[in-house]
């Protein structure tokens, strides 16, 4: 086990490992997205209160879930690079930031587009919305900090500290709807619960979309990581060989 991990920590091996995994995520993403979109937009019934406007949930909720999930992947990778100084984990953490920022932006933007007709406002400074906005700033801060250093190792240390400190925001986002009074609703989908607050006909497409988003994240993460490795290792022989092969 430890041996495989140290092997993967070498950028060269990690590059080829990512390449092997890529098609296993890319194709399912495409299929799941198409099925999820069709199911959510066409097959799923309208809601008894919100009518067709609730369909925004099929992008809003998966994007919001991913904004938290990507942050955790980023923070764990950052912690790994801080502790073991593994380059591969630095690459993964760096690749996470722009993807997480995009998901956070989507969650905020689609939420705003949903809030206007239903709540009566584009934006409300409630705990859920505000803490999600702070998450966007954390991602952007990570990216800015990363570009501020020329030396990759120093940059990795600085960004890792930011990423780890920012983890406190994750439970705040998650529990904000329970800890404070928010305009935002409480959780609809809860894992440990027999009776869901959402009808099956809507829950299934939501789960398909959520899975599609997970696969999508993995796909883009692998693509970005491979690019960053090529860039970092551009002086090596194996990268030149790889260029000739492509």
């Amino acid at each position, binding site marked *: 086990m430890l041996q495989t991990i140290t092997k993967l920590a070498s950028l060269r091996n990690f590059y080829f490992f990512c390449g092997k995994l890529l098609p296993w995520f890319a194709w399912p993403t495409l299929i799941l997205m198409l099925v999820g979109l069709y199911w959510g937009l066409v097959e799923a019934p309208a809601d*008894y209160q919100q009518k067709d406007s609730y369909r925004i949930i099929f992008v809003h909720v998966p994007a919001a879930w991913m904004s938290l999930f990507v942050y955790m992947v980023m923070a764990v990778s950052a912690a790994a690079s801080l502790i073991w100084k593994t380059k591969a984990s630095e690459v993964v953490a760096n690749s996470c930031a722009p993807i997480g920022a995009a998901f956070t932006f989507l969650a905020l933007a689609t939420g705003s587009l949903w809030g206007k007709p239903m709540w*009566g406002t584009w934006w409300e400074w409630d705990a859920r919305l*505000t803490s999600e906005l702070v998450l966007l700033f954390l991602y952007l801060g990570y990216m800015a900090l990363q570009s501020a250093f020329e030396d990759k190792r120093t940059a990795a240390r600085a960004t890792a500290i930011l990423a780890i400190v920012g983890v406190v925001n994750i439970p705040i986002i998650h529990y904000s709807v329970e800890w*404070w*009074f928010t305009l935002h609703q409480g959780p609809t989908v809860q894992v440990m619960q027999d009776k869901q607050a959402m009808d099956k006909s809507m829950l299934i497409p939501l789960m398909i979309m959520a899975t599609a988003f997970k696969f999508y994240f993995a796909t883009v993460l692998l693509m970005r990581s491979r690019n960053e490795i090529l860039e970092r290792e551009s002086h090596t022989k194996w990268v030149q060989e790889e260029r000739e092969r492509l």
Partner: protein
Amino acid sequence: MTPTRKRRLMMVALIVLGVGAAAALALTAFNKNLMFFFSPSQVAAGEAPLNRSFRVGGMVKDNSVNRDGLTVRFVVHDNAKEVTIAYTGILPDLFREGQGIVAQGKLAADGVFIADEVLAKHDENYMPPEVAAAMKPKGVDKTEKAKY
């Protein structure tokens, strides 16, 4: 200082400033929301300020909505006390009797709350109309909303 060093220092300072500002913003924003939020019971008990804007939250009482041109009057309750709200403007699409709402405005001398913004809150339930209709007699809606 070399230009790159300077740039780096600027970046770090900017980020610290940004994160700090975001945190401060967040805390004041939702503390303010909490501080000036009152339930109908609190308003009835005279706890709400008379001359400044605050928020009232509760459920719209059944059969209490009266439309007079663009002005709407309705009663909001929290299962204990009631507040009458008057509002001129467009209501959110989720506004209806039995729905949880939050109104921002001022209390007039006659005890009517003059709102300049009405927001609707929705619960965590999603279902097709047929399912909702089948569930109605059991009163599922009411128990869910009572949590609000």
